[in-house]
Protein backbone atom coordinates (compact mmCIF):
# COMPACT_ATOMS: atom_id res chain seq x y z
CA UNK A 1 0.00 0.00 0.00
CA UNK A 2 1.25 3.48 -0.81
CA UNK A 3 1.38 6.17 1.79
CA UNK A 4 -0.07 8.80 -0.45
CA UNK A 5 -3.66 9.21 -1.49
CA UNK A 6 -4.72 8.99 -5.11
CA UNK A 7 -7.06 11.93 -4.86
CA UNK A 8 -7.14 14.92 -2.50
CA UNK A 9 -10.24 17.04 -2.47
CA UNK A 10 -10.33 20.26 -0.53
CA UNK A 11 -13.27 22.60 0.13
CA UNK A 12 -14.97 21.79 -3.15
CA UNK A 13 -18.13 23.82 -3.81
CA UNK A 14 -20.42 24.19 -6.77
CA UNK A 15 -23.17 26.76 -6.94
CA UNK A 16 -25.80 27.04 -9.63
CA UNK A 17 -26.45 30.76 -9.30
CA UNK A 18 -27.58 31.10 -5.70
CA UNK A 19 -28.56 27.43 -5.49
CA UNK A 20 -26.12 25.08 -3.76
CA UNK A 21 -24.96 22.03 -5.72
CA UNK A 22 -22.35 20.85 -3.25
CA UNK A 23 -20.77 22.88 -0.49
CA UNK A 24 -17.31 22.66 1.04
CA UNK A 25 -16.59 18.97 0.47
CA UNK A 26 -13.16 17.66 1.48
CA UNK A 27 -11.81 14.12 1.54
CA UNK A 28 -8.94 11.91 0.46
CA UNK A 29 -9.15 8.67 -1.46
CA UNK A 30 -6.45 5.99 -1.40
CA UNK A 31 -5.68 3.32 -4.00
CA UNK A 32 -7.92 0.29 -3.58
CA UNK A 33 -10.54 2.20 -1.60
CA UNK A 34 -14.19 2.35 -2.52
CA UNK A 35 -15.99 5.44 -1.25
CA UNK A 36 -19.77 5.52 -1.35
CA UNK A 37 -21.55 8.86 -1.55
CA UNK A 38 -25.14 8.46 -0.38
CA UNK A 39 -28.08 10.78 0.02
CA UNK A 40 -31.46 11.30 -1.59
CA UNK A 41 -32.08 12.96 -4.95
CA UNK A 42 -31.04 16.58 -4.85
CA UNK A 43 -28.50 16.07 -2.08
CA UNK A 44 -25.66 17.08 -4.39
CA UNK A 45 -24.03 13.70 -4.76
CA UNK A 46 -24.17 13.66 -8.56
CA UNK A 47 -22.95 17.27 -8.71
CA UNK A 48 -20.00 16.22 -6.57
CA UNK A 49 -19.27 13.23 -8.81
CA UNK A 50 -19.43 15.38 -11.93
CA UNK A 51 -17.05 17.94 -10.41
CA UNK A 52 -14.60 15.25 -9.35
CA UNK A 53 -14.62 13.65 -12.77
CA UNK A 54 -14.18 17.15 -14.30
CA UNK A 55 -17.36 16.81 -16.32
CA UNK A 56 -18.36 19.96 -14.43
CA UNK A 57 -16.09 22.70 -13.10
CA UNK A 58 -16.56 23.65 -9.45
CA UNK A 59 -17.19 27.21 -8.26
CA UNK A 60 -14.36 26.94 -5.75
CA UNK A 61 -12.06 24.44 -4.09
CA UNK A 62 -9.36 22.15 -5.35
CA UNK A 63 -8.89 18.51 -6.27
CA UNK A 64 -5.48 17.05 -6.99
CA UNK A 65 -4.83 13.66 -8.49
CA UNK A 66 -1.68 11.60 -8.23
CA UNK A 67 -0.63 10.81 -11.79
CA UNK A 68 1.09 7.57 -12.77
CA UNK A 69 4.47 9.29 -12.44
CA UNK A 70 3.70 9.98 -8.76
CA UNK A 71 3.21 13.73 -9.20
CA UNK A 72 0.06 15.42 -7.94
CA UNK A 73 -1.70 17.52 -10.53
CA UNK A 74 -4.42 20.06 -9.88
CA UNK A 75 -7.41 18.80 -11.87
CA UNK A 76 -9.04 22.13 -12.54
CA UNK A 77 -5.84 23.68 -13.84
CA UNK A 78 -5.25 21.01 -16.45
CA UNK A 79 -5.99 21.74 -20.06
CA UNK A 80 -9.13 20.27 -21.57
CA UNK A 81 -6.95 17.89 -23.63
CA UNK A 82 -5.10 16.63 -20.56
CA UNK A 83 -8.35 16.02 -18.73
CA UNK A 84 -9.76 14.14 -21.68
CA UNK A 85 -6.65 12.00 -21.80
CA UNK A 86 -7.02 11.18 -18.10
CA UNK A 87 -10.67 10.32 -18.64
CA UNK A 88 -9.79 7.98 -21.52
CA UNK A 89 -6.92 6.18 -19.84
CA UNK A 90 -6.58 6.38 -16.09
CA UNK A 91 -10.22 6.89 -15.17
CA UNK A 92 -13.52 5.23 -15.87
CA UNK A 93 -17.04 6.58 -15.57
CA UNK A 94 -19.94 4.17 -15.24
CA UNK A 95 -23.25 5.91 -15.90
CA UNK A 96 -26.57 4.87 -14.45
CA UNK A 97 -27.98 4.62 -17.95
CA UNK A 98 -25.65 2.45 -20.07
CA UNK A 99 -26.75 4.33 -23.19
CA UNK A 100 -24.89 7.38 -21.83
CA UNK A 101 -21.63 5.45 -21.57
CA UNK A 102 -21.84 3.16 -24.60
CA UNK A 103 -22.04 3.67 -28.33
CA UNK A 104 -25.29 1.92 -28.99
CA UNK A 105 -24.84 1.46 -32.73
CA UNK A 106 -21.41 -0.16 -32.84
CA UNK A 107 -20.71 -3.72 -31.78
CA UNK A 108 -19.99 -4.80 -28.20
CA UNK A 109 -16.45 -5.70 -29.20
CA UNK A 110 -15.91 -2.28 -30.77
CA UNK A 111 -17.25 -0.58 -27.63
CA UNK A 112 -14.50 -2.23 -25.64
CA UNK A 113 -11.85 -2.00 -28.36
CA UNK A 114 -12.44 1.70 -28.88
CA UNK A 115 -11.08 2.53 -25.43
CA UNK A 116 -7.97 0.47 -26.22
CA UNK A 117 -7.43 2.28 -29.50
CA UNK A 118 -7.75 5.57 -27.63
CA UNK A 119 -4.70 4.62 -25.57
CA UNK A 120 -2.73 3.76 -28.69
CA UNK A 121 -3.37 0.08 -29.34
CA UNK A 122 -3.39 -0.56 -33.10
CA UNK A 123 -3.08 -4.34 -33.49
CA UNK A 124 -6.52 -5.59 -34.51
CA UNK A 125 -5.96 -9.19 -33.38
CA UNK A 126 -4.75 -8.11 -29.95
CA UNK A 127 -7.58 -5.65 -29.50
CA UNK A 128 -10.12 -8.27 -30.40
CA UNK A 129 -8.54 -10.83 -28.08
CA UNK A 130 -8.55 -8.36 -25.19
CA UNK A 131 -12.16 -7.46 -25.95
CA UNK A 132 -13.16 -11.14 -25.90
CA UNK A 133 -11.33 -11.60 -22.61
CA UNK A 134 -13.08 -8.61 -21.03
CA UNK A 135 -16.49 -9.62 -22.29
CA UNK A 136 -16.02 -13.01 -20.64
CA UNK A 137 -14.92 -11.34 -17.41
CA UNK A 138 -18.21 -9.47 -17.32
CA UNK A 139 -20.03 -12.67 -18.25
CA UNK A 140 -21.05 -11.78 -21.80
CA UNK A 141 -20.99 -14.78 -24.15
CA UNK A 142 -18.32 -14.66 -26.82
CA UNK A 143 -20.87 -15.10 -29.61
CA UNK A 144 -22.39 -11.70 -28.72
CA UNK A 145 -19.21 -9.77 -29.49
CA UNK A 146 -20.42 -8.58 -32.89
CA UNK A 147 -23.90 -7.61 -31.65
CA UNK A 148 -24.80 -4.01 -30.94
CA UNK A 149 -25.67 -3.10 -27.34
CA UNK A 150 -29.10 -2.08 -28.63
CA UNK A 151 -29.84 -5.80 -28.76
CA UNK A 152 -28.69 -6.37 -25.15
CA UNK A 153 -30.77 -6.48 -21.98
CA UNK A 154 -30.32 -3.74 -19.38
CA UNK A 155 -28.08 -5.87 -17.17
CA UNK A 156 -25.90 -6.91 -20.12
CA UNK A 157 -25.57 -3.32 -21.27
CA UNK A 158 -24.43 -2.32 -17.80
CA UNK A 159 -21.86 -5.13 -17.72
CA UNK A 160 -20.63 -4.07 -21.17
CA UNK A 161 -20.28 -0.50 -19.94
CA UNK A 162 -18.15 -1.78 -17.06
CA UNK A 163 -15.93 -3.77 -19.44
CA UNK A 164 -15.51 -0.72 -21.66
CA UNK A 165 -14.42 1.31 -18.65
CA UNK A 166 -12.04 -1.19 -17.12
CA UNK A 167 -10.28 -2.46 -20.23
CA UNK A 168 -7.63 0.28 -20.11
CA UNK A 169 -6.68 -0.63 -16.53
CA UNK A 170 -7.86 2.62 -14.91
CA UNK A 171 -6.84 3.45 -11.35
CA UNK A 172 -9.98 5.41 -10.46
CA UNK A 173 -13.54 4.69 -11.49
CA UNK A 174 -16.55 6.95 -10.94
CA UNK A 175 -19.92 5.25 -10.76
CA UNK A 176 -23.28 6.98 -10.76
CA UNK A 177 -26.01 4.65 -9.44
CA UNK A 178 -24.45 1.67 -11.26
CA UNK A 179 -27.26 -0.69 -10.29
CA UNK A 180 -30.14 1.77 -10.53
CA UNK A 181 -33.07 0.57 -12.59
CA UNK A 182 -32.02 -3.10 -12.67
CA UNK A 183 -34.00 -6.09 -11.37
CA UNK A 184 -32.76 -7.34 -8.02
CA UNK A 185 -31.34 -10.59 -9.39
CA UNK A 186 -29.55 -8.69 -12.15
CA UNK A 187 -28.41 -6.18 -9.54
CA UNK A 188 -26.96 -8.93 -7.33
CA UNK A 189 -24.99 -10.35 -10.27
CA UNK A 190 -23.64 -6.92 -11.15
CA UNK A 191 -22.69 -6.12 -7.55
CA UNK A 192 -20.89 -9.42 -7.21
CA UNK A 193 -19.04 -8.73 -10.43
CA UNK A 194 -18.10 -5.20 -9.40
CA UNK A 195 -16.90 -6.36 -5.99
CA UNK A 196 -14.69 -8.99 -7.57
CA UNK A 197 -13.22 -6.65 -10.18
CA UNK A 198 -12.56 -3.87 -7.69
CA UNK A 199 -10.73 -6.29 -5.38
CA UNK A 200 -8.79 -8.10 -8.11
CA UNK A 201 -7.67 -4.93 -9.85
CA UNK A 202 -7.10 -2.89 -6.69
CA UNK A 203 -9.22 -0.08 -8.10
CA UNK A 204 -10.18 3.05 -6.26
CA UNK A 205 -13.79 3.97 -6.85
CA UNK A 206 -16.29 6.65 -5.94
CA UNK A 207 -19.80 5.26 -6.09
CA UNK A 208 -22.83 7.49 -5.91
CA UNK A 209 -25.92 5.64 -4.79
CA UNK A 210 -29.13 6.22 -2.88
CA UNK A 211 -29.21 2.50 -1.98
CA UNK A 212 -27.59 1.89 1.39
CA UNK A 213 -27.40 -1.86 0.78
CA UNK A 214 -25.34 -1.25 -2.36
CA UNK A 215 -23.09 1.08 -0.38
CA UNK A 216 -22.61 -1.53 2.35
CA UNK A 217 -21.73 -4.22 -0.16
CA UNK A 218 -19.34 -2.23 -2.32
CA UNK A 219 -17.67 0.39 -0.16
CA UNK A 220 -15.36 0.59 2.83
CA UNK A 221 -16.00 4.27 3.44
CA UNK A 222 -19.05 6.40 3.15
CA UNK A 223 -20.07 10.05 2.95
CA UNK A 224 -23.67 11.02 3.63
CA UNK A 225 -24.85 14.18 1.86
CA UNK A 226 -27.80 16.43 2.47
CA UNK A 227 -28.52 19.79 0.84
CA UNK A 228 -25.08 19.77 -0.77
CA UNK A 229 -23.18 19.24 2.46
CA UNK A 230 -21.49 16.18 3.91
CA UNK A 231 -23.40 15.53 7.15
CA UNK A 232 -21.50 12.41 8.18
CA UNK A 233 -18.60 10.31 6.96
CA UNK A 234 -16.58 7.35 8.13
CA UNK A 235 -16.28 3.60 7.79
CA UNK A 236 -19.30 2.27 5.95
CA UNK A 237 -20.30 -0.22 8.64
CA UNK A 238 -19.79 2.38 11.38
CA UNK A 239 -22.00 4.94 9.63
CA UNK A 240 -24.73 2.37 8.99
CA UNK A 241 -24.62 0.57 12.36
CA UNK A 242 -24.02 3.63 14.58
CA UNK A 243 -25.34 6.61 12.61
CA UNK A 244 -24.69 9.87 14.47
CA UNK A 245 -26.19 12.66 12.37
CA UNK A 246 -29.97 13.12 12.54
CA UNK A 247 -30.27 12.78 8.78
CA UNK A 248 -28.22 9.55 8.66
CA UNK A 249 -30.39 8.10 11.43
CA UNK A 250 -33.46 8.94 9.37
CA UNK A 251 -31.94 7.31 6.26
CA UNK A 252 -30.90 4.15 8.08
CA UNK A 253 -34.23 3.81 9.87
CA UNK A 254 -36.03 4.12 6.53
CA UNK A 255 -34.45 0.99 5.03
CA UNK A 256 -36.97 -1.70 4.25
CA UNK A 257 -36.11 -5.03 5.83
CA UNK A 258 -36.56 -8.13 3.69
Amino acid at each position, binding site marked *: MTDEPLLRVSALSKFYGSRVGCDNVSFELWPGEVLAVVGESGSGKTTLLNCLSTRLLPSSGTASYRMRDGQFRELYRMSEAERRFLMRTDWGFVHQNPADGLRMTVSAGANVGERLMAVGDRHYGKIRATAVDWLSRVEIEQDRIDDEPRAFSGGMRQRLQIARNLVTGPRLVFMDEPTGGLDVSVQARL*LDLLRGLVTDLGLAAIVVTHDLAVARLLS*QRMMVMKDGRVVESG*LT*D*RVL*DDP*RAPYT*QLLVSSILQV
Partner: protein
Amino acid sequence: MPTPLVVSDVAKSFTMHLRDGIKLPVVAGVSFSIKAGECTVLGGPSGAGKSSILKMLYGNYAVDEGQIIVKHEDGLIDLAHASPRTVLAVRRQTIGYVSQFLRTVPRVSALDVVAEPLVERGEERETARGKARALLAQLNLPEKLWALPPATFSGGEQQRVNIARGFITEHPILLLDEPTASLDAKNRDVVIELIAAKKAAGVALLGIFHDHDVREAVADRIIDVTAFASGKLAA
Protein backbone atom coordinates in the same frame (compact mmCIF):
# COMPACT_ATOMS: atom_id res chain seq x y z
CA MET B 1 2.32 -12.26 28.86
CA PRO B 2 2.19 -9.26 26.49
CA THR B 3 -0.88 -7.03 26.53
CA PRO B 4 -2.08 -6.40 22.98
CA LEU B 5 -5.16 -4.34 23.87
CA VAL B 6 -5.87 -1.83 26.63
CA VAL B 7 -9.21 -0.09 27.05
CA SER B 8 -9.32 2.95 29.31
CA ASP B 9 -12.24 5.06 30.47
CA VAL B 10 -14.35 4.37 27.41
CA ALA B 11 -17.88 5.73 27.34
CA LYS B 12 -20.64 5.23 24.83
CA SER B 13 -24.16 6.54 24.43
CA PHE B 14 -26.67 6.74 21.62
CA THR B 15 -28.44 9.99 20.78
CA MET B 16 -31.76 9.21 19.14
CA HIS B 17 -32.46 12.22 16.95
CA LEU B 18 -35.71 10.72 15.72
CA ARG B 19 -36.92 10.55 19.35
CA ASP B 20 -36.43 14.24 20.17
CA GLY B 21 -32.73 13.71 20.71
CA ILE B 22 -33.01 11.60 23.85
CA LYS B 23 -29.70 10.21 24.99
CA LEU B 24 -29.42 6.52 25.82
CA PRO B 25 -26.34 5.87 27.91
CA VAL B 26 -24.79 2.47 27.26
CA VAL B 27 -21.53 2.20 29.21
CA ALA B 28 -19.08 4.54 30.91
CA GLY B 29 -15.71 4.19 32.55
CA VAL B 30 -14.91 0.97 30.70
CA SER B 31 -11.34 0.02 31.58
CA PHE B 32 -9.69 -3.36 31.14
CA SER B 33 -6.98 -5.08 29.19
CA ILE B 34 -6.69 -8.47 27.55
CA LYS B 35 -3.69 -10.73 27.41
CA ALA B 36 -2.12 -12.87 24.71
CA GLY B 37 -2.91 -16.55 25.11
CA GLU B 38 -5.97 -15.90 27.25
CA CYS B 39 -9.69 -15.86 26.67
CA THR B 40 -11.34 -13.00 28.51
CA VAL B 41 -15.11 -13.13 28.78
CA LEU B 42 -17.50 -10.19 29.09
CA GLY B 43 -20.22 -11.14 31.56
CA GLY B 44 -23.48 -9.52 32.58
CA PRO B 45 -27.14 -9.60 31.61
CA SER B 46 -28.52 -8.72 28.17
CA GLY B 47 -28.52 -4.98 27.61
CA ALA B 48 -25.51 -4.38 29.86
CA GLY B 49 -23.48 -3.25 26.85
CA LYS B 50 -21.33 -6.31 26.14
CA SER B 51 -21.89 -6.29 22.39
CA SER B 52 -21.48 -2.52 22.27
CA ILE B 53 -18.05 -2.86 23.88
CA LEU B 54 -17.00 -5.48 21.29
CA LYS B 55 -18.30 -3.29 18.47
CA MET B 56 -16.32 -0.31 19.72
CA LEU B 57 -13.18 -2.43 19.84
CA TYR B 58 -13.79 -3.39 16.21
CA GLY B 59 -14.43 0.21 15.13
CA ASN B 60 -17.99 -0.67 14.24
CA TYR B 61 -19.40 1.71 16.88
CA ALA B 62 -18.03 5.17 17.50
CA VAL B 63 -16.53 5.88 20.92
CA ASP B 64 -17.69 8.98 22.85
CA GLU B 65 -14.82 9.15 25.33
CA GLY B 66 -11.69 7.29 26.31
CA GLN B 67 -9.02 5.34 24.52
CA ILE B 68 -8.67 1.91 22.98
CA ILE B 69 -4.98 1.23 22.55
CA VAL B 70 -4.09 -1.68 20.32
CA LYS B 71 -0.72 -3.04 19.35
CA HIS B 72 -0.77 -2.93 15.56
CA GLU B 73 2.24 -3.94 13.49
CA ASP B 74 5.14 -2.30 15.35
CA GLY B 75 3.30 0.53 17.02
CA LEU B 76 0.38 1.45 19.22
CA ILE B 77 -2.83 2.87 17.83
CA ASP B 78 -5.75 4.52 19.58
CA LEU B 79 -8.71 2.93 17.81
CA ALA B 80 -11.13 5.39 19.39
CA HIS B 81 -9.61 8.18 17.33
CA ALA B 82 -8.19 6.31 14.34
CA SER B 83 -9.01 7.21 10.74
CA PRO B 84 -11.22 4.80 8.77
CA ARG B 85 -8.17 3.74 6.78
CA THR B 86 -6.27 2.83 9.95
CA VAL B 87 -9.26 0.92 11.35
CA LEU B 88 -9.40 -1.07 8.12
CA ALA B 89 -5.70 -1.90 8.38
CA VAL B 90 -6.16 -2.99 12.01
CA ARG B 91 -9.06 -5.23 10.96
CA ARG B 92 -7.02 -6.74 8.16
CA GLN B 93 -3.94 -7.48 10.26
CA THR B 94 -4.65 -7.30 13.97
CA ILE B 95 -8.25 -7.68 15.14
CA GLY B 96 -10.55 -10.41 13.90
CA TYR B 97 -14.24 -10.53 14.75
CA VAL B 98 -16.91 -13.21 14.72
CA SER B 99 -20.24 -11.39 14.68
CA GLN B 100 -23.47 -12.80 15.99
CA PHE B 101 -24.98 -13.07 12.54
CA LEU B 102 -23.45 -13.66 9.15
CA ARG B 103 -23.94 -10.86 6.66
CA THR B 104 -24.30 -12.68 3.39
CA VAL B 105 -23.25 -11.40 0.01
CA PRO B 106 -25.32 -12.50 -2.99
CA ARG B 107 -23.72 -15.11 -5.23
CA VAL B 108 -20.57 -15.65 -3.14
CA SER B 109 -20.12 -19.27 -2.08
CA ALA B 110 -19.73 -20.30 1.57
CA LEU B 111 -16.20 -21.44 0.75
CA ASP B 112 -15.21 -18.02 -0.62
CA VAL B 113 -16.94 -16.21 2.25
CA VAL B 114 -14.65 -18.15 4.59
CA ALA B 115 -11.51 -17.79 2.45
CA GLU B 116 -11.94 -14.04 1.85
CA PRO B 117 -10.16 -12.67 4.97
CA LEU B 118 -7.07 -14.71 4.09
CA VAL B 119 -7.12 -13.53 0.48
CA GLU B 120 -7.33 -9.94 1.78
CA ARG B 121 -4.17 -10.61 3.75
CA GLY B 122 -2.41 -11.59 0.56
CA GLU B 123 -2.80 -15.39 0.61
CA GLU B 124 -3.17 -17.24 -2.71
CA ARG B 125 -6.85 -17.94 -3.40
CA GLU B 126 -6.39 -21.70 -3.74
CA THR B 127 -4.35 -21.99 -0.54
CA ALA B 128 -7.01 -19.94 1.26
CA ARG B 129 -9.74 -22.18 -0.13
CA GLY B 130 -7.85 -25.23 1.10
CA LYS B 131 -7.80 -23.87 4.65
CA ALA B 132 -11.45 -22.90 4.33
CA ARG B 133 -12.36 -26.47 3.35
CA ALA B 134 -10.50 -27.88 6.34
CA LEU B 135 -12.29 -25.53 8.76
CA LEU B 136 -15.74 -26.11 7.29
CA ALA B 137 -15.13 -29.86 7.52
CA GLN B 138 -14.01 -29.52 11.14
CA LEU B 139 -17.22 -27.60 11.87
CA ASN B 140 -19.27 -30.38 10.24
CA LEU B 141 -20.80 -28.23 7.53
CA PRO B 142 -22.02 -30.66 4.84
CA GLU B 143 -19.74 -30.52 1.82
CA LYS B 144 -22.65 -30.13 -0.58
CA LEU B 145 -23.24 -26.63 0.91
CA TRP B 146 -19.73 -25.28 0.37
CA ALA B 147 -20.30 -24.09 -3.18
CA LEU B 148 -23.60 -22.37 -2.33
CA PRO B 149 -24.11 -18.80 -1.11
CA PRO B 150 -25.06 -18.99 2.61
CA ALA B 151 -28.14 -16.71 2.33
CA THR B 152 -30.51 -19.70 2.37
CA PHE B 153 -28.65 -21.68 5.06
CA SER B 154 -30.15 -22.38 8.50
CA GLY B 155 -29.08 -20.23 11.46
CA GLY B 156 -26.65 -22.86 12.73
CA GLU B 157 -25.12 -23.39 9.30
CA GLN B 158 -24.65 -19.65 8.78
CA GLN B 159 -23.05 -19.34 12.18
CA ARG B 160 -20.54 -22.08 11.38
CA VAL B 161 -19.61 -20.27 8.14
CA ASN B 162 -19.20 -17.14 10.22
CA ILE B 163 -17.00 -18.90 12.79
CA ALA B 164 -14.82 -20.42 10.08
CA ARG B 165 -14.43 -16.98 8.51
CA GLY B 166 -13.35 -15.52 11.85
CA PHE B 167 -10.96 -18.31 12.79
CA ILE B 168 -9.23 -18.82 9.44
CA THR B 169 -6.74 -15.96 9.86
CA GLU B 170 -3.95 -15.53 12.36
CA HIS B 171 -5.06 -12.22 13.83
CA PRO B 172 -3.37 -11.66 17.22
CA ILE B 173 -6.68 -10.44 18.70
CA LEU B 174 -10.02 -12.16 18.15
CA LEU B 175 -13.40 -10.83 19.27
CA LEU B 176 -16.25 -13.32 19.59
CA ASP B 177 -19.88 -12.21 19.88
CA GLU B 178 -21.84 -15.27 21.00
CA PRO B 179 -20.31 -17.62 18.45
CA THR B 180 -22.08 -20.67 19.87
CA ALA B 181 -25.60 -19.26 20.29
CA SER B 182 -27.30 -21.42 17.64
CA LEU B 183 -25.03 -24.48 17.60
CA ASP B 184 -25.70 -28.03 18.76
CA ALA B 185 -23.55 -29.69 21.45
CA LYS B 186 -21.19 -31.36 18.96
CA ASN B 187 -20.36 -28.14 17.19
CA ARG B 188 -20.11 -26.21 20.44
CA ASP B 189 -17.34 -28.62 21.35
CA VAL B 190 -15.61 -27.91 18.04
CA VAL B 191 -15.69 -24.18 18.81
CA ILE B 192 -14.24 -24.85 22.28
CA GLU B 193 -11.39 -26.77 20.59
CA LEU B 194 -10.84 -23.96 18.10
CA ILE B 195 -10.65 -21.43 20.93
CA ALA B 196 -8.18 -23.62 22.83
CA ALA B 197 -6.00 -23.82 19.71
CA LYS B 198 -6.05 -20.01 19.36
CA LYS B 199 -5.02 -19.62 23.00
CA ALA B 200 -2.17 -22.05 22.50
CA ALA B 201 -1.07 -19.98 19.49
CA GLY B 202 -0.87 -16.87 21.70
CA VAL B 203 -3.99 -15.12 20.44
CA ALA B 204 -5.77 -12.75 22.82
CA LEU B 205 -9.48 -13.57 22.77
CA LEU B 206 -12.35 -11.48 24.07
CA GLY B 207 -15.80 -12.99 23.93
CA ILE B 208 -19.42 -13.01 24.94
CA PHE B 209 -20.83 -16.46 25.72
CA HIS B 210 -24.31 -16.88 27.11
CA ASP B 211 -23.87 -20.65 27.13
CA HIS B 212 -22.71 -21.57 30.64
CA ASP B 213 -20.80 -24.73 29.63
CA VAL B 214 -18.88 -22.98 26.87
CA ARG B 215 -18.02 -20.11 29.19
CA GLU B 216 -16.75 -22.51 31.83
CA ALA B 217 -14.66 -24.32 29.24
CA VAL B 218 -12.96 -21.31 27.64
CA ALA B 219 -12.86 -18.41 30.12
CA ASP B 220 -9.63 -17.49 31.87
CA ARG B 221 -11.14 -14.34 33.30
CA ILE B 222 -14.61 -12.83 33.45
CA ILE B 223 -15.19 -9.08 33.36
CA ASP B 224 -18.52 -8.03 34.82
CA VAL B 225 -19.87 -5.39 32.46
CA THR B 226 -22.49 -4.17 34.96
CA ALA B 227 -19.60 -2.38 36.68
CA PHE B 228 -19.51 -0.08 33.63
CA ALA B 229 -23.22 0.77 33.68
CA SER B 230 -23.58 4.43 32.81
CA GLY B 231 -25.88 5.20 35.75
CA LYS B 232 -23.31 4.00 38.27
CA LEU B 233 -20.88 6.82 37.64
CA ALA B 234 -23.45 9.53 38.11
CA ALA B 235 -24.89 7.89 41.22
